[in-house]
């Protein structure tokens, strides 16, 4: 398939992941025009991308913008992880509004050939007896709000794909960590004290934001037409992470978690149910098909990403050179 001069539309281009994706797409030779949409402006400078600042509830403006651009490829990363940038209820509403408007608008575009959606490995759920490392063929049985949200996005995208006859690829990301990525898991692990489950302390895997962005760009380039797990190699437990980051491990069991979650919320690191689930039941996925489907493997393993998490600088407050007030 000749891909020269494709029009690519990125939803959620204002987030760290979306901005990184747009930056990578700008360097792709097959990409012609590039446009993006979000409620917030991009996190860093984009040279070729035309940015539209539109709130997800402005349905008509979204439809008009997407329809006028008439993209060949839609990259939908406009999702709000609970307690990342918005409280769980607001995050669910924003994600639903964005998915419905953008995927619905894309369905009206005559040039549309391919859709890539950001999903998550939370989609497999962690019910009792769930596979330790589910592959892409494992049943979808989410057990958290975030898992149900990404399942709904995949479902909507698949329906759009069937209706208009375009391929749809779902990139199921492990929890994304990066120096500027708002992640509830990352915030929790960077607290001075890190809670862990005494009875389980299960392993989880993560993915660095740049690896996640590379995977999504590869999915857009190759026309991924099925789901793929994007997970860094290896795994780590909360206790091991706390030790590597020289944090104080806080052993918890049963009702202690309610108190810990409330305290953590007060300290600025709320623990949504999918993060709590990862700390109690683990969160792994089989990344064996990543190379086959996307032609890439993550550059950083899970332990490496966690080590880097603890080396990223905290917020540095610089006083104004001239006090004006």
């Amino acid at each position, binding site marked *: 398939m000749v891909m020269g001069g494709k029009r690519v539309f990125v939803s959620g281009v204002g987030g760290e992941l979306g901005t990184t994706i747009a930056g990578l797409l700008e360097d792709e030779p097959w990409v012609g025009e590039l446009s993006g949409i979000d409620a917030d402006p991009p996190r860093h400078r984009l040279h070729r991308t035309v940015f539209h600042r539109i709130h997800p509830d402005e349905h008509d403006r979204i439809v008009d913008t997407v329809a006028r651009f008439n993209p060949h490829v839609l990259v939908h990363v406009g999702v709000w992880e609970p307690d990342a940038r918005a409280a769980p209820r607001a995050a669910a509403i924003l994600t639903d509004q964005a998915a419905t408007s953008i995927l619905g608008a894309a369905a009206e575009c005559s040039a549309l050939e391919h859709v890539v959606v950001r999903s998550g490995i939370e989609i497999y759920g962690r019910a*009792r*007896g*769930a*596979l*330790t*490392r*589910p*592959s892409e*063929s*494992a049943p979808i049985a989410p057990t958290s709000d975030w898992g149900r949200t990404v399942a709904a996005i995949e479902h909507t995208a698949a329906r759009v794909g069937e209706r208009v006859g375009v391929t749809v690829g779902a990139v199921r990301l492990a929890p994304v960590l990066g120096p500027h990525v708002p992640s509830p898991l990352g915030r929790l692990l960077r607290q001075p004290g890190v809670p862990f*489950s005494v*009875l*389980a*302390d*299960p*392993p989880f*895997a993560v993915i660095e934001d740049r690896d996640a962005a590379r995977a999504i760009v590869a999915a857009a380039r190759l026309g991924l037409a099925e789901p793929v797990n994007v997970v860094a*190699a*290896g*795994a*780590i*437990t909360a206790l*091991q992470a706390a*030790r*590597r980051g020289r944090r104080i491990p806080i052993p918890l069991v049963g009702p202690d978690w309610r108190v810990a979650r409330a305290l953590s919320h007060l300290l600025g690191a709320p623990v949504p149910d999918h993060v709590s689930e990862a700390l109690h039941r*683990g969160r*792994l996925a*089989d990344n*064996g*098909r990543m*190379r*086959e489907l996307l032609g890439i493997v993550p550059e950083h393993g899970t*332990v490496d990403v966690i080590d880097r998490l603890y080396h990223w600088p905290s917020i540095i407050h610089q006083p104004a050179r001239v006090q004006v007030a």
Partner: protein
Amino acid sequence: MTSTLGRVVNFPVRNTASRAGAAVSRAAADVSASVVRFTDEQAGVVDDWGRDAGLVRTVIGLSHLRWDVTVGGDQRLPSRKGALIVVNARTLALAPIYAALALSEAVDRPVRFVGRPDVAPVGPLLRRIGGLLDHPDEVAGALAAGQLVIMGAAHNERLRKVGRVDHALVGGALAAGVQVFPAATSSNPIGRAARLEIGTPSRSPRRRRGPLSELELADQVARDIELLLSEIGDLRTGTPIDWLPLTGVGGA
């Protein structure tokens, strides 16, 4: 827990594209199946399945207090690819666990065993020493990633008899394209002596196109283990207990 529905269906006619796709998948799996040496594994982290090498080394040290396992036939196992090893089992003998620990030492590779529960604290603890859920997809995933996996047959208290081998788990090995090895275990309830003898890979007596292949292979594995049990004989305690029939010594 496991599905009894057969999972291996080979249709007689395949198109070229699907063959090419399968070849690519296998090649990709081979590349990704990098062999990890047990002695090189880093302590303080867990692997892709949650196995903690440091804890495994500690448990192996402790297991020497209970079992002194002689491992034979391990040279038959593939050096890089995955393999499913089926052992006979007896109630409370913990045959898959001591076999996995002993084989890890013998072949210097992580060895996993099937049959951990998914309930804390036992399930997570067994996961840390290499336990997998008793689920065909879990087993197939580990085998496709080049792991050595030990599963136990159903318990059978009769000497030199092997219980039912779960054909769904054997089907996982067929789906992953790895060999299935029969292995006889023998342990002593009142002594430390134990043995693990791995046989040549089992082969289905007939080439089948459907789920019969896994059923027949599972039956063949059970027969091969019985043969191995007959060959290695019973363990002797050196006490009058050996004179009793069905003492529970040997066989598992």
